[in-house]
Each structure stands twice: as C-alpha cells, then as structure tokens.
C-alpha cells in the first residue's frame, strides 16, 4: 500500500451533484502530485475529501496506512493552503504560524524555534509581528505556506494557491513551491486549472474531467502520449490542432490530405490531433496553411492561419524564421507525431 491511497472514492453532494466518480489513485511518499482539469471538474472536491473537509460518500482513503474516512480533519495531520490563503486576520504572522503548534500542546521554546525556522525558509522573518492585512499578496502567500510547513504534516494540500497573484509573481512562487517541496520532501497534492503550472510542478499529473481521472502519469508521458481527446486538448499550449477525418484500411482521409500506413485497426470517423510544435515547413508537404496572424514570442513564433477547408490551424516555429502575413506555407508532420481519436468516444486509437 502506498502512502496515500484512494480507493473507488465517490462524492455526491447533498443536492445530488456527483462531483467525483469512483476515483482510485495512489501517491507515494514525497511525491508531488498535481490535479489539473477545467473549472467544476471536481478537483477541489477530491482534495477536500483528503483533507477531511468533505464527507466521503463511497470508497476509502488511506493515509500512511490508516483509514481516514471517519477521522476528523484536526486529527489527520494534513495542511492545506487555500486559494484566498484563509490567514487568521486577527493574529499576527507569528501567531498564524504558531496556532497549529499550540493546539498540539507543543512547548513555547520549540514553537518559537519552529516558527523562526519556517519564517527564515520563506523569508518572512521581518513580518512576524504584522497582521495579514498589512502584507502584500505574495507575502500572504508565503505566510500561508509557512503555516503549512511549520507543522511538518504528513501531506500538503494546495487548492489553486497561486491564482490570486499577478503573472510574474505566480511564476516566481511556482518555482519557490517546487524548490521548497523538494527541500522539505513532504508529499504534496496541488490543484490547478492552469496546465503550465501543472506541467512544471508535477512529479505526476492527474488530468481530471467531469469527476473522473482521464489520465495519470508524468507530465512528459501525458504530453507525449495523451490517451483521450480531452487530455490532448487540455495539455499543451497552444492547444493541439484537431481535424476531422475518416479511418479505413489503415488510411486516414482528412479534408485536404491523406495519411497512409497508420498503425491502428480502427475504422470509422476519427479526430486527428497535431501539436503546433510537431510541424515543419517542407515543399509539397501534407498541409497547406494560409497565414492570418503571427505572434512573435521571441524564442518562438506562433503562426495562426486556415487550411483549405477554412479550418483554423496553428503552427509553432523557431523565432528566427520570418513568416509573412498572407503567405502560404506547406507543412509536414514531424516523425509521424500525430494522434488519432475515436470521434464518438474520444479514446485514442493509434
């Protein structure tokens, strides 16, 4: 049995909303797991069940070998960082950090020691006497992290903790969280709907849709090998291009081109997925793109345009290539990196 074990966990809210369906998941000690998915897919619900803030309708949650279903959140030894931080407004930073330790009946000197250590680690030592209302967003974020770290819990839970920060600070804090987690080595679950955040932070990633884990794996596995249309569309930026087609006798026919010798026995309507970065310019290539717009990011160019059949399409090329608006590009798919999904079920078939 691994460190955290979810077995067929289901959550049905009193109003009948089924937020999580029979989800099973194992997380190893020290692992950084990220739940990613669109808004309302049930990731917070799943996290809150681990914390004990929501009842588990069905299934079991085991933490460190103990069944958690009936254990009160205060007894679970988990720490959570909330989206709005939920700092204690009437306590100064020191007491915010110390409160959980006091409740555990730890003596004063030890508390002071631990709080000061955590404060140093997070660089908030200068603010210990301030109230949360006198801190900036980034500093509050650190205090929230400090409150979690100081208790040395079995598991850290993060529910979109970076979404209230501006873009630059978010990237900085993301890095810090990752470093901190590696330094402290605590098992962590991080919830986000931002796929870049998910990819950069995760040891392993769970892509959740409609209360079901669609795919579980390392970020690279999921990026390279999406098992469903949903995962393929959700992970990767800019989004994967999707084209309609039909598969018969190992030949895929799209509006404007055909691909032969496909390794799949599937026959019927399919969706073809091609990542913008898996294309390259080649004379007499498969795909003809009429360029509408070029976004120059410096290192890369994002080229947006339309195919013959007016389908929107995106191509990502190195930043040193000069591409004119209105020009026609001929593109090939690199190394046969394309994905074929059953159109009706969204399942990967190649």
């Amino acid at each position, binding site marked *: 049995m691994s460190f955290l074990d979810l077995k067929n966990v289901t959550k049905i809210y009193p109003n009948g909303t089924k937020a999580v369906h029979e989800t099973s998941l194992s997380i190893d000690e020290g692992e950084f797991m990220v739940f990613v998915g669109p808004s309302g897919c049930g990731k917070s619900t799943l996290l809150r069940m681990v*914390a*004990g*803030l929501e009842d588990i309708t069905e299934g079991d949650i085991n933490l460190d070998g103990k069944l958690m279903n009936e254990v*009160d*959140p*205060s007894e*679970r030894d*988990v*720490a*959570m960082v*909330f989206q*709005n931080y*939920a700092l*204690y*407004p*009437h306590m100064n930073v020191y007491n915010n950090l110390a*409160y*959980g330790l006091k*409740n*555990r009946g730890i003596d004063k000197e030890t508390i002071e020691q631990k709080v000061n250590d955590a404060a140093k680690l997070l660089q908030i030592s200068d603010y210990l006497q301030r109230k949360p209302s006198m801190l900036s967003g980034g500093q509050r974020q650190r205090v929230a992290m400090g*409150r979690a770290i100081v*208790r040395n819990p079995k598991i850290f839970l993060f529910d979109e903790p970076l979404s209230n920060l501006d873009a630059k600070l978010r990237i900085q804090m993301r890095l810090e969280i990752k470093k901190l987690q590696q330094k402290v080595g605590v098992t962590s679950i991080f919830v986000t709907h931002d796929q870049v955040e998910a990819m950069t932070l995760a040891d392993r990633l769970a892509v959740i849709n409609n209360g079901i884990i669609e795919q579980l794996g390392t970020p690279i596995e999921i990026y390279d090998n999406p098992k469903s249309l949903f995962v393929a569309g959700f992970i990767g930026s800019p989004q994967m291009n999707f084209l309609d087609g039909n598969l018969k006798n190992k030949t895929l026919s799209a509006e404007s081109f055909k691909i032969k010798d496909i390794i799949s026995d599937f026959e019927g309507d399919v969706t073809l997925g091609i990542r913008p970065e898996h294309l390259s310019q080649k004379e007499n290539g498969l795909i003809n793109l009429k360029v509408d717009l070029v976004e120059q990011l410096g290192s890369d160019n994002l080229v947006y345009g339309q195919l013959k059949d007016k389908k929107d399409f995106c191509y990502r090329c190195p930043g040193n290539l000069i591409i004119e608006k209105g020009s026609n590009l001929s593109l090939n798919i690199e190394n046969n990196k394309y994905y074929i999904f059953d159109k009706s079920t969204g399942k990967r078939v190649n």
Partner: protein
Amino acid sequence: MKIKPLQIIAHIILILGVLLMVVPIWISFASSSHDSVTILTEGMKFHIGDQLARNYNEVLNEKGGWSEEVTAAKMFINSFIMALGIATLKVVISAMSAYALVYYRFKLAVPIFWLIFITLLVPLEVRIFPSYKIVSDLGLTNSYTGLILPLVASATATFFFRQFYKTIPDELLESAKLDGANAWSFFIDFLVPLSKTMIAAMFIFMFVYGYSQYLWPLIMTTAEEYWTVVMGMKIIYTESYEGVALPRTAERFAYIILSMIPPVLVVVFLQKWFIKGLIQTEK
C-alpha cells in the same frame, strides 16, 4: 473653502438636534445646584447655583425608605450589578447560541432561529406574570439572581451575532480545523476576537437596557435593599409630600443627573469599539 447652502442647512439641523438632546440635561443639572425653594418659586434654572455640593452630598448619603436604611448609593450599586449581569450574560448567551445556530448545521437550526427571533414580539412586560410565578416558585424574589435571570436571553443580540458569523468565510473555519482547533477553541480563538467590536456594541445596548428596567425590579423586589435607581426615581423623597415639608425638587434633579452617570461611563469606555462595531470593516 466655500460653504455650500446645503451644508449650512445640514449643520443647522444637526445643531438643533444637539440642543434638543443637551438642553434638558443642562436644565436638570443647573436646577440641581439650587435650593428647592428657589426652584419651586422661580421655576427651573439655566445657570449654576450655590447648592451643588450640598444637594449631591444629601442625595448620595441620606438614608431613606420605610426602614430608613437604603441610600441612593446602594441603589446605584444594585442597578449596576443588575445591568452588568444582564449585559454580560446576554452577550455571552447570544454569542454562543448564534455560534450553535450558524456552525452546527442541524436540521432544526432555522426553525429554532425563528423561534428565538419571534420572542422579540414577547418582551418581558407581556410575560411578566408567568415570569414572576416562575421566579417566585424558585424562591428567587429579592435576589440579584431573580433580578437578572429572566432577562438574560436576547433575540436581538442573537440575531446580530448570527448575521456577523455568517459573514466569516468558511475557509477560516476549515483552516482552523486543519490546525487542530476544536469547536470550543474556534469560538474562543476566532469568533470572540473577531467579533470584539460587536461584543462591545452589544454590551452597551444591553447594559443600558438592563439599567433602565423598571417594571421587573418593581414587581420582583419587596426588600428595600434590592431597590434600583429607576425605582428610586419614583419612590425617593415622596415622603416629603406628607406634612408640611416642601417637595425636594433640587435633590431630585441631582438624583436624575447621578443616575445618568453609569451608562454614560460605559459608553465612554467602550465607544472606541462601539463605533467600530457599528461600521464593521475589520474582518
């Protein structure tokens, strides 16, 4: 800076309001510093006279009542104990019941809340006979407990605390729970400090309410040593009407002025929080 006509009108209205409040108090105070004879013959006074010290000394220390034993000072103490007891218990009980109503999501929470709320329609004066019956069956007449106990439940304060608790974000409770707080420590460590301005405001209201009770102490007490200030206002110095003695009007004014002091002190001491409580922003 130019003053707009609208501002002038606003200020005139405000000044009139202030005068309306202050003038009667001033007249009472000024009149309390004269001889009763002067007031009886010349009417109430606007300026300070020369009998101030004598009148106040008289009022505080003269023994009255049938037993010739109660003094005004004793009545002040009684009123203070009663008001303090009522205000403290009202605040404590309402804060706790609001806590139960908001945070323990049992099915009957809403009906119970409305049940508490409609008791606003049944003030003590309406239920005075049953209340008296209960208190006297318990043998609590002529005691501080009897004076205080029937008045300690408060729908108003429960309502205000409930509304306040509802504005506290759920995450605060959740985060406290994960930090190992139990039901009691969440109340003491979070709700009480967060609502301290509210508590101060409620305490003032309830203190004044308790202090100005008239009917209940009147019915409840037969022993003079439990008389309260407000009762005293009616009773004190009436004996002077008998016989030839003159009504002691000046002393009565002095008594009225003295009776205002305790509530004023409470307001002065708590006003910093009180005002914050009314315009609650700190959350």
